C-alpha cells in the first residue's frame, strides 16, 4: 500500500469518486447569512449560529483538550456541500450530491499530535473528542484562553452567486450546449462525457492562541472527455477547467474552449507516435507542465519530510539548486485559482512563498509543527482534506516566474527532443528524488520545429538533477486550468501549478526503440 512513500497527483478525471448535493439541506439559509456584505463580526456570529456553538462552548472544549497539558489546540468546524451533474450518451442523466458536517479537534505537544473528530456538533460529543485528542500529552493542564479574537480575512475568491443558490436546472444547459458543440466540431467524435461539479465549504477555526477565523471556500470544475474513431482506431482525451469561482467563471469563451480543446486534443492523437526511448531534451509547454515543479521540488520542500529527515532537499537550504533565472514560488493568494486560500487550515495567513529565488533554495513550506520545530515563520501551508484529518504542510499554487527567453527561441534551440503539452498524473519518492509525470500528448521537436504529435509516455527524472538541468525559461508564464488534486498520506487537496515554456537539457522519456 505504500502508505507514506507514495505522493500521488492526479487530474480529477471523469471516473473519479464523485460526491456532491442540493441547496439548503441544513437549517441554514446561505442567502441570509452570506450573500450580502456585512460587518465581519456579524459574519462570525452567523458561523457560530450555523454550527450551533458560541464562544463559551468553544473555550470549554478547548479546556478539555488542554486538560493533560498540550502546548496548543485547535478546533476546526466544517460544513461542505458538493454537487455533480453528468451527461453521457447525449443526456443529462445523472446527479450526485453530498453533504458533510463535523468538527476536528487537534492537540499538539512538542512535535506530537493528538487528533479526533466528531460528526455530531454538541458540547458533549466535542468534549469527548477533545479528551481523546488530549491524551497525546501527559502533564499538568494548560490553561485555555480566556476569550477569542476574530480575525478578518482577505478575499481571494469572490463569487457573484453562492453555489447553494445555483439550482440544477441552471447547470443542465451548460452540459447540453458543450455536448452539442463537441459533436458538431468533428464527425469522428463518437462519445462525449461531461461532468459539472461545484463544491462549497464553510469553515470556522478557533485555536488556543485565542484566534478565530471563518471562511467560505467555493470550487467548481467542468470536465469534458471524448472518444473519436477513425479507420477502426479509437482515441480518448479531454479538457477541464477548474477554479475557486462561481458560475460566472463559465463564460461563453470558456465554454467554447472546453469543446474546442477536448476535440482537438482527441483528434490529434490519431497521428501520434511514440518518441525514442531514453534521455533527451524536453521542452515543457506553458501551463499544467508546472506538474514538473510539484513533483521535482514541491513535495521535497514540504517541511514535514525535512523534519523527518526524509527529503533529498533536507541539506540544501541556501544552496544553489538551479540557474540564476529560475524563481519558483508557492502562492496561496492568486485570485480565484484552485489552490488559493484566504487562510490556511490552522488559521495562519497564506502568502507568496519563494522556494527558489535566483536559483538559490530559499525556504521550506511550513505548517505550525514544522515552523516551531525549525523556529521559522509560518508560510501558511498547513492544509487538510477535511475536518477528519490533522493538517500537514501542503502546496497551494506552485509555479515558476517568467524568465529571460522566448518560447520561439527555446523550440528553435532543440535539434531532437520532446515538447510535452498535456498531463494526467505524476508521483515522487521524496528521499531518492525520483519523480515522474505522465504526458498524455505533445509533439516531437525536430530541427527546431514542432513536428508529429506524441501520446502516452511517462517521463522520469531526479528532482535536484532536473532543477539543475533547466537551461532556458521563457517569459510566457501560464497557470494550469484543470482540476488538479494532490494526494499525500491519504489526504487529497485542490492545488494548481504553472510554468512558462521551459527547456530541460536531459530527462528520461519512456519511448520505444
Amino acid at each position, binding site marked *: 500500500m505504500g502508505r507514506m512513500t507514495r505522493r500521488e497527483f492526479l487530474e480529477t478525471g471523469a471516473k473519479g469518486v464523485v460526491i456532491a448535493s442540493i441547496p439548503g439541506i441544513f437549517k441554514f439559509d446561505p442567502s441570509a447569512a452570506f450573500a450580502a456584505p456585512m460587518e465581519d463580526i456579524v459574519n462570525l456570529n452567523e458561523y457560530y449560529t450555523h454550527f450551533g456553538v458560541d464562544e463559551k462552548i468553544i473555550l470549554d472544549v478547548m479546556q478539555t483538550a488542554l486538560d493533560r497539558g498540550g502546548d496548543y489546540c485547535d478546533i476546526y468546524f466544517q460544513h461542505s456541500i458538493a454537487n455533480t451533474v453528468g451527461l453521457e450518451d447525449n443526456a443529462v*442523466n445523472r446527479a450526485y450530491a453530498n453533504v458533510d458536517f463535523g468538527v476536528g479537534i487537534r492537540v499538539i505537544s512538542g512535535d506530537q499530535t493528538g487528533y479526533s473528530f466528531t460528526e455530531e456538533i454538541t458540547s458533549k460529543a466535542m468534549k469527548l473528542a477533545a479528551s481523546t485528542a488530549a491524551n497525546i500529552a501527559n502533564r499538568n493542564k494548560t490553561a485555555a484562553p480566556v476569550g477569542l479574537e476574530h480575525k478578518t480575512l482577505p478575499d481571494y475568491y469572490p463569487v457573484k452567486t453562492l453555489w447553494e443558490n445555483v439550482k440544477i436546472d441552471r447547470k443542465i444547459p451548460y452540459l447540453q450546449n458543450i455536448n452539442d458543440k463537441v459533436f458538431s466540431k468533428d464527425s469522428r467524435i463518437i462519445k462525449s462525457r461531461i461532468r459539472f461539479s461545484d463544491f462549497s465549504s464553510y469553515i470556522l477555526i478557533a485555536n488556543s492562541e485565542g484566534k478565530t477565523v471563518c471562511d467560505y471556500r467555493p470550487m467548481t470544475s467542468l470536465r469534458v472527455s471524448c472518444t473519436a474513431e477513425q479507420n477502426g482506431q479509437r482515441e480518448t482525451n479531454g479538457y477541464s477547467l477548474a477554479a475557486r469561482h462561481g458560475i460566472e467563471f463559465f463564460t461563453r469563451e470558456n465554454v467554447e474552449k472546453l469543446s474546442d480543446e477536448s476535440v482537438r486534443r482527441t483528434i490529434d492523437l490519431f497521428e501520434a507516435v511514440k518518441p525514442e526511448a531514453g534521455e533527451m531534451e524536453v521542452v515543457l509547454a506553458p501551463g499544467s507542465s508546472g506538474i514538473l515543479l510539484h513533483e521535482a521540488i514541491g513535495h521535497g520542500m514540504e517541511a514535514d519530510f525535512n523534519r523527518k529527515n526524509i527529503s533529498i532537499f533536507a541539506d540544501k537550504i541556501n544552496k544553489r539548486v538551479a540557474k540564476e533565472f529560475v524563481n519558483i514560488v508557492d502562492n496561496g493568494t492568486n485570485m480565484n485559482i484552485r489552490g488559493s486560500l484566504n487562510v490556511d487550515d490552522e488559521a495562519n495567513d497564506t502568502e507568496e512563498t519563494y522556494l527558489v529565488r535566483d536559483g538559490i533554495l530559499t525556504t521550506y513550506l511550513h505548517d505550525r509543527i514544522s515552523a516551531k520545530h525549525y523556529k521559522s515563520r509560518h508560510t501558511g501551508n498547513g492544509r487538510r482534506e477535511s475536518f477528519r484529518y490533522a493538517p500537514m504542510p501542503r502546496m497551494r499554487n506552485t509555479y515558476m516566474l517568467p524568465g529571460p527567453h522566448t518560447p520561439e527561441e527555446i523550440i528553435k534551440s532543440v535539434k531532437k527532443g520532446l515538447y510535452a503539452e498535456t498531463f494526467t498524473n505524476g508521483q515522487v519518492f521524496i528521499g531518492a528524488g525520483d519523480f515522474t509525470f505522465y504526458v498524455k500528448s505533445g509533439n516531437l521537436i525536430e530541427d527546431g520545429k514542432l513536428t508529429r504529435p506524441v501520446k502516452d509516455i511517462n517521463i522520469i527524472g531526479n528532482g535536484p538533477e532536473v532543477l539543475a538541468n533547466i537551461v532556458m525559461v521563457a517569459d510566457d508564464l501560464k497557470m494550469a486550468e484543470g482540476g488538479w488534486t494532490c494526494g499525500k498520506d491519504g489526504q487529497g487537496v485542490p492545488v494548481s501549478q504553472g510554468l512558462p515554456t521551459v527547456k530541460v537539457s536531459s530527462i528520461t522519456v519512456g519511448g520505444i*526503440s
Partner: protein
Amino acid sequence: MNNKEKLELARWAVKQAKSRGAEEVSVDVAQSRNVEVEYRDGQIDKLKESTQNAMDISIYDDNRYSSHGTNDLRKGSLEKFISEAVAMTKYLNEDSHRKLPDPKFYSDQKDIDLKLFDSSYGNVTSEQRVKISREIESIAKAQSDKILSCTSGYSDSFSESVKVNSNGFEGESTRTAFSAGAEVTVDGGGGGRPQDWNWATVRFFKDLPDLEFLGKVAVERALEKIGQDKMQSERFDMIVENRSAGRLFYSLFSPMQAGSLQQKSSFLEGKLGEKIASGKFTLIDNPFIINGLGSRLYDGEGMATKKRVKIDKGVLKEYYIDTYYGSKLGMSPNSGSTTNITLEYGTKSLDDLIKGMKKGILVKNFIGGNSNSTSGDFSFGIMGHYIEGGRIARPVNEMNISGNMKEFWNRLAEVGNDPYVFSSWRFPSLYFTDVQFSGI
C-alpha cells in the same frame, strides 16, 4: 447504532423516499471506528481516533436517477435531505437503463461465514497499539546505522454496514481490519535517500505478521536500493515482484469494465472468447476467501457474488458488468467490481524466477505512469534491480517501461507461487519477456 438499528434506519429512509414519489430506492448506512498510531524517535508522533457515519441513497424515479450522501443521520435532517434528493431527480433527463438489479440476482447468496470480523477487536488496548508501534521501530532501527528516518505504526478499524433495496434486498456486514508496519529512509551516500516500506493488513488481530518481519524487511528493502542508478535503454526480460504486480492488472481491469466498453474506450471491446494474454495467465475473481480483504457475499448493488474465472489460460471469459452499463450493452450483469483477485499460481518462488533470468530487471516499485484504456498504450516509471546470470547485480531506478497492453500480456512467461496476501488483489511475482525499458 448497531446493524439492526441501521437496518431500521435504512428501511425508514426507503419509505421516506417512496412516500415523496421515488419509484425505487437503494440505501446504504455505514459506520466505522478507526484508531491510528504513528510512531517515531521513541514517541508517538500522531494518535488519531474517530467514529464516522454515512448514508448513501440512490433515487430511481420515472427513469431518472441520482445519488446522494450525508453524514448527518438525525431523522429530522434526513427527512429534508431525502425530500430534496427526490425533488432534484425530477430535473434530469430520462434514462430507461437506470434501474435496481433484477431481484433474481439477489437470490442465490451463499450462506457461509467469511470470517471478516474479529470479535477480539474490543480487547485491543491503547497500550498494545503503542507497544506494537514501538517494537517495530526498535527492531527496524537495530538493523542498520544508515537509517535516517523510521516511522512505524499501527491502525485498526471496525466497520458495520447495511444495504436495503426497495425491490427486495437487505444485507449487512461487519468487518475488522488491523494494519502494522514501518517506512524507512536510509542514507544512500551522494545525496540520495532511498526509502521503502513494509506494511501488512489483515482481518484478524492474531494474523498480524511477526513484528520482526515488518521492521526488518522495511530496512532491508531500503538498504538494497543504495547506489541505484539508471541503465542504457534496452529491451529486457522483466520480473515484477508480487506486491507491485497488481498495478499492471489495473490496466486490464479498467478496459474490462462495462462502462469503458459502452463508452467505446476499451481496447478489449469485442474480445470476449479471444486470447488476450499468454496461456500462463488465469485470473479468478473469488469473493469467498476466508478472512479475505476483498471477500463479500453481495456486491455494491446487492447482487449475490460468485466465484468467476475472468481470464482462462489467456482467453478473456468475462467482463466486469454492472446493472446499468450491462443494460445499455444488452449484457447480463455479473458485478462491476472486483472482490479478491487470485491467479492460477505457478510453482516457482521469486528466488527461482530470479535464478532463471539470464539478463533482465526485477521491478520492485512502480512510480507514476499510466495506461490508456482505449488504445492499450502504457508507460510506467520503475525501481528495482538489474539481474545478471540469475543473480541480483545492482539496484536500478529512474527508468520507464513502455508498450501496449494488447500484446504485453502475451509475453507473460512465468507466474510465481507467492501471492501477496496483504491485498485483495493477490498477485504473485510475474515474469515477462522482452519489455522496453528506457533509461539513458
